[in-house]
C-alpha cells in the first residue's frame, strides 16, 4: 500500500475532499443541464449513459432542464399520463427508490445522495380533472403565481423521526390504518407505507454497498469508516438514531428523500433537535467538537437546506447553544451555498450575530443570513395566536418560517405581481374616456385591483386545498408532522393543526417609483400629458423622445432615497396590500399572512409586465422583494435601505427581507464588522424581519459573469437563497452584477 494514501486524513482534509467532489458534481451539472436559477439542492446527476432529459417547471416554479434515469418509467394512473393521489405517488416513489443507485463516499461519515427529481417524472403536474379554468382569466390578467399545485414549503418536526425511526413510523401508520378506515385515510396510508418501505430499501442497499466497498478499500481509516457507515445504516433501517452521527445520517436520508420527492426539505432548528444527541455523545466522550463539525459538514455538502440557529424558545429565552456555533463553523469550512440563518433578537446571544458577520466577511458567500426573530414571532401573534406559538415558528425556507410539524403554509409559492396589478389599473384608467386621468384615479383603481387580485388568490388557495391531496400529497412531510398519520389526512387537507397561507406581494419599488414619477412629471411639473405617457408606455419608450422621457421619469426621487414621495407611496402600497390580505380569510375560512417577497421570480414576473412609468422597459425584471431598485440613492446608503425596508413590513409574521450588497470597499476590519452587525440589529429594532447580505469582490464577480468557469467556486446570495454564481442564468447573474455595480 502506498504510504501517502495510507496517511490518516484529518477532518479538515476530508472536508476539503468533499468540497472538491461537490465542485466536480456542480460543474458537471453546469455542463449537462445548464443553468439553474434556484437553490443548489445538492443533487448529483444520474450515472453517465443512463440519463434522459426533460424540460419541466421546478417546485419553485422555475423552468428547468432536468436529467432523469433513462431506465425508470413511472406507472401513470390517469389518461393524461399523470401520477395522482397518495397511492400512485407512493407506489411510484417506492419504485424509484428501489432502483435508485447507491452513493457512498468513503471520505464522508454519512452515506447517500439523490439523483433525480420525482417532480420531473410527474407530468402533467396537475390533475386536469380538477378544472380551474374559471380562475385562469384573472390569474393571467394579474400575472399571479397563484399557488394552485404548490408543493412542500412548510416544515416537519424532525424529532418525530428521531424518536420513531423508520420502523416506528411504519408501526404508527399500521396502527392508525386500523383506526381511520375511510377511503381518503386508507389511500394516504398506502402512499405513506410505500414511501417508508422505499426508504428502508434505499438505506438497506446503501449499507450493503458500503460493506462491499469496505472489503476492497485499502486505506485503513476509510475502510473503518465504510464499515461504520454500513453498521450504522443497518441499524437505521428500522431503529431510531442513538448517536449524533446516526442522527445526522437519519436527517440526511429524510432530507434527500424530500428533495427527490418534491424538492422539499426544510431543516428548521437544527441546533435544537440535534442538541440532545450532541450533549449525550460529548458526555459519553464519544464525540468532540471537531468530529461534530465534520458530521454536520458531511450533511450540508449533500443537503443545503434552510436552517435557523439560535432564537427564542417557547418561553422567550434564548436557545443559542454550542451546537449553533458548530453549525456555523461547518458551513464556514465548506464554503458552499448552505442556507443558514442566524437569529438576532433582544435576548439572543449577540456573539452569534457577530460570528455570523465575521463569516460573511471571511467567506464572501452571502452566508449566513440574519433573522429578526422577535419581529416575526410578534407579528405572527397578530394573527390571533399566543406569543409563545410565534416563537416556535422555525426559519426553514427562503424567506419563511413555519411551526415544525404543525402548520401548512404554501410559503413562498403565491406571488401577487403588484407591478402587473398597477399596469392593469393604469391602462384601465387611460382607456376610460369617461374619466379625467389623475393620480387619484390611478390610485383608486390600483387599490381596487389589489383587493381583487388577493380575492382571486384566496379562491385559488381554497381550490388548492380542496384538491391537492388527490393530486400530489405531501407524503414526505406528512411522515414527520403531528396529525396526518393520526387523522389519516394529508397536511394539505386537514392533516395539521394550523393553516396559515402565505401571500406575498412583489414589485413594490417598481410601483412606488412609478406612482412618484407620474405625480412629479405629469401632475406637479406637467412635463408630460397622460396621453403622451400612454404612448411612451405602449411603445416601450420608443425613439429619442421616448428615451428622454424614460430617463426623465427615472430621475424622480425613488423609494429608498428617504423622505421622498416614492417612500410614502411604498408605505401606502404595503398598507393596502396588507389590509387586502388581512381583511378576511379565504372564502373557506383559511388565514392568509402577507409578506413582501419576489424570491428570484422577479425576472419571470417582469416578463408579464409592459413598460412602467418608473422608466423600466417592458418585460424587464420588476424590483426585488421589498427592496428599492438599485441606484435608489447616490450613496446607496445601507441605512437608507434599512429604514425603507423596515417601513414597509406587513407585520404579521411573514417577512419582507432586506437584501444588501456591499462592494469589498467595506473591509473586514473590526469596525466594519461592528457596523454591519449594528446595521442588522437596528433594522430589526425598526421592524425588519430578515436580512440577506452579499459582500462581493466586484472584479471577481465581473470576471465570473463573463466566464463562469474562471471562478467556479464563487457563491453569491441571489435572494433568500445563495447559489454558485456559475449555476445561474445570464439574466440572474446580471441582476446580481447590477446590484453590486450600483454601489459605485
Amino acid at each position, binding site marked *: 500500500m502506498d504510504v501517502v494514501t495510507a496517511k490518516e486524513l484529518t477532518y479538515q482534509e476530508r472536508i476539503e475532499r468533499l468540497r472538491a467532489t461537490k465542485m466536480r458534481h456542480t460543474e458537471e451539472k453546469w455542463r449537462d443541464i445548464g443553468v439553474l436559477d434556484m437553490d443548489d439542492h445538492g443533487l448529483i446527476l444520474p450515472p453517465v449513459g443512463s440519463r434522459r432529459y426533460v424540460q419541466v417547471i421546478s417546485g419553485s416554479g422555475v423552468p428547468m432542464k432536468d436529467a432523469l434515469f433513462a431506465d425508470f418509467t413511472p406507472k401513470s394512473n390517469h389518461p393524461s399520463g399523470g401520477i395522482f393521489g397518495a397511492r400512485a405517488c407512493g407506489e411510484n416513489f417506492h419504485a424509484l427508490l428501489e432502483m435508485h443507485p447507491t452513493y457512498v463516499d468513503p471520505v464522508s461519515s454519512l452515506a447517500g445522495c439523490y439523483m433525480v427529481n420525482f417532480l420531473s417524472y410527474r407530468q402533467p403536474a396537475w390533475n386536469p380533472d380538477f378544472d380551474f379554468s374559471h380562475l385562469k382569466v384573472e390569474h393571467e390578467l394579474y400575472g399571479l403565481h397563484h399557488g394552485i399545485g404548490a408543493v412542500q414549503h412548510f416544515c416537519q418536526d424532525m424529532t418525530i423521526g428521531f424518536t420513531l425511526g423508520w420502523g416506528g413510523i411504519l408501526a404508527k401508520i399500521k396502527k392508525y390504518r386500523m383506526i381511520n378506515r375511510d377511503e381518503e385515510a386508507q389511500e394516504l396510508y398506502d402512499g405513506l407505507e410505500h414511501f417508508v418501505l422505499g426508504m428502508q430499501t434505499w438505506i438497506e442497499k446503501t449499507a450493503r454497498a458500503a460493506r462491499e466497498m469496505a472489503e476492497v478499500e485499502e486505506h485503513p481509516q476509510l475502510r473503518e469508516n465504510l464499515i461504520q457507515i454500513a453498521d450504522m445504516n443497518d441499524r437505521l433501517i428500522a431503529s431510531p438514531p442513538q448517536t449524533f452521527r446516526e442522527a445526522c445520517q437519519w436527517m440526511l436520508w429524510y432530507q434527500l428523500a424530500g428533495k427527490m420527492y418534491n424538492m422539499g426539505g426544510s431543516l428548521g432548528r437544527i441546533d435544537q433537535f440535534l442538541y440532545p444527541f450532541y450533549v449525550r455523545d460529548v458526555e459519553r466522550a464519544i464525540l468532540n467538537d471537531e468530529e461534530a463539525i465534520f458530521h454536520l459538514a458531511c450533511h450540508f455538502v449533500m443537503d443545503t437546506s434552510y436552517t435557523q440557529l439560535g432564537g427564542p424558545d417557547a418561553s422567550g429565552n434564548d436557545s443559542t447553544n454550542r451546537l449553533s456555533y458548530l453549525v456555523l463553523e461547518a458551513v464556514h469550512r465548506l464554503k458552499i451555498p448552505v442556507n443558514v440563518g442566524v437569529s438576532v433578537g433582544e435576548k439572543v446571544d449577540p456573539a452569534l450575530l457577530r460570528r455570523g458577520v465575521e463569516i460573511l466577511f471571511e467567506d464572501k458567500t452571502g452566508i449566513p443570513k440574519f433573522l429578526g426573530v422577535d419581529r416575526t414571532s410578534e407579528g405572527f401573534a397578530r394573527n390571533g395566536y399566543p406569543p409563545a406559538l410565534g416563537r416556535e415558528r422555525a426559519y426553514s425556507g427562503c424567506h419563511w418560517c413555519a411551526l415544525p410539524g404543525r402548520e401548512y403554509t404554501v410559503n413562498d409559492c403565491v406571488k401577487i405581481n403588484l407591478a402587473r396589478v398597477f399596469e392593469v389599473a393604469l391602462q384601465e384608467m387611460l382607456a376610460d374616456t369617461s374619466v379625467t386621468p389623475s393620480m387619484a384615479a390611478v390610485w383608486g383603481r390600483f387599490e381596487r385591483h389589489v383587493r381583487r387580485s388577493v380575492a382571486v388568490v384566496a379562491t385559488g388557495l381554497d381550490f388548492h386545498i380542496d384538491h391537492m391531496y388527490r393530486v400530489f400529497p405531501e407524503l414526505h412531510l406528512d411522515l414527520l408532522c403531528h396529525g396526518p398519520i393520526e387523522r389519516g389526512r394529508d397536511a394539505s387537507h386537514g392533516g395539521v393543526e394550523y393553516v396559515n397561507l402565505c401571500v406575498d406581494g412583489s414589485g413594490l419599488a417598481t410601483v412606488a417609483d412609478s406612482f412618484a414619477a407620474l405625480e412629479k412629471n405629469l401632475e406637479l411639473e406637467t412635463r408630460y400629458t397622460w396621453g403622451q405617457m400612454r404612448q411612451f408606455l405602449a411603445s416601450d419608450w420608443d425613439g429619442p423622445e421616448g428615451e428622454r422621457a424614460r430617463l426623465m421619469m427615472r430621475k424622480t426621487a425613488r423609494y429608498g432615497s*428617504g423622505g421622498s414621495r416614492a417612500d410614502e407611496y411604498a408605505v401606502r402600497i404595503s398598507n393596502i396590500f396588507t389590509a387586502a390580505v388581512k381583511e378576511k380569510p379565504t372564502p373557506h375560512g383559511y388565514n392568509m399572512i402577507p409578506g413582501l417577497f419576489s424570491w428570484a421570480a422577479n425576472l419571470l414576473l417582469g416578463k408579464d409586465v409592459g413598460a412602467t412609468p418608473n422608466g423600466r422597459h417592458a418585460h424587464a425584471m420588476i424590483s426585488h422583494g421589498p427592496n428599492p431598485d438599485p441606484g435608489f440613492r447616490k*450613496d446607496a*446608503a445601507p*441605512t437608507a435601505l434599512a429604514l425603507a425596508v423596515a417601513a414597509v413590513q406587513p407585520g404579521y409574521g411573514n417577512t419582507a427581507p432586506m437584501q444588501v450588497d456591499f462592494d469589498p470597499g467595506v473591509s473586514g476590519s473590526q*469596525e*466594519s464588522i461592528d*457596523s454591519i452587525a*449594528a446595521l442588522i440589529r437596528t433594522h430589526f429594532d425598526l421592524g425588519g424581519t430578515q436580512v440577506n447580505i452579499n459582500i462581493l469582490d466586484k472584479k471577481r464577480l465581473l470576471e465570473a459573469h463573463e466566464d463562469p468557469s474562471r471562478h467556479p467556486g464563487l457563491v453569491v446570495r441571489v435572494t433568500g437563497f445563495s447559489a454558485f454564481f456559475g449555476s445561474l442564468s445570464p439574466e440572474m447573474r446580471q441582476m446580481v452584477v447590477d446590484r453590486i455595480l450600483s454601489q459605485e
Partner: protein
Amino acid sequence: MPSDLVFNIQRFTIHDGPGIRTTVFVKGCAMGCFWCHNPEGRHSYRELQYFEDRCIHCGECVHVCPSQAHDLRDGLHHFLRDRCRVTGECVKVCCSGALEMNGRVMTVDEVMEEVLRDRPFYQTSGGGVTISGGEPGLNADFVRGILGRCKGEGLHTAIETCGYCSWSALESLLPFTDLVMMDLKVITPEKHRLATGNTNEQILANARRLAATAMPIIFRTPIVPTVNDTVEEVRHIVAFIADLIALRTRGGANHRSRISYELLAFHKLGSVKYRSLGLEYHAIALDPPKRRHMEELLVLATEAGIEATMR
C-alpha cells in the same frame, strides 16, 4: 440661521469616526493637493459638473441655457465651461444625469433633517455625524451650527480638517466636537508647498494647539507616491506626532484623551470627478502604494509607540 454650500451628505460612512456615521461635506478648501479625491469640495462656490459618458446628446440643455454654455454640433453636445453662469437651468432638463450641480446652499435645519434620519443607527453603533469637506474650518459658523445641533440631539460629532484654517475658527468648533481627524501630509515645509500649494506652518501650529487641548485626535496621512511615501517623510510625521503625544502626556489632566494615527493609501477613485469639473487630474500616473509598503510605513508609527492603523 447659518447656511452654506454642501456638496454631499453621505450616509453609512464607517471610516470617518466611530460607528455608523453620516458625513456632511462642506464646500471650500484653501489647499490645492493635486491628488485630492474630493475635488468638488475645493471651490467655495457652486459649479456645474458635466459627466460626458452619461450624456445622450439630446440638446435640451442648449435650449434653456441663458448663457449659451451648451452647444450641439454634429449631434454631439459640447459644454463651454467658461461661458457657464451656473444658473442650473440645464440641470433641471437633463434627463440622463450628465449635468449636475455641485454644491447646494443648505440651512442647518435642512442638514439636520437628513442627518437625523439615521439616528437609530448611530445609537446602536456608537456612531454619529462627521463634518468633512472641503475644509470645515473655513465654514466655521455653519459647521458650528450643525455640530451644536448634533450635540443638542445627543449625537457623537467629529470633524475632518486639513488644518489649514485659522486657529480661532478651528477652536470655535471644539466645544461641539468629540473627535478631530486632522491631516498631516508632509512635515518638510518646501515639499508641503510643492504638493499642496501652501506652506504648513499654520497646519503644524494648529496641530500643536489642538494637542494641547483635551480633544481626542486622529492624525491622518494620505500616503501619496512622489509626495510622502518614503520612510524618511513618514518618520518626520511620526516624530512630530510622538512629540505631541509627549506634550499631551506632560499636560496632566488631558493625558487621557487619545492621539492616534492613520495611514491612508492614495487611490484614484476621484479621477472621474476631475473630468466632470473641467479640472486636470495630475495624479493620474501615480499608482496606489502596495499593501506591503503601507505595512512598512505603519511599523514606523507603532515602533514609536503610537497607536496606528492603515487602510
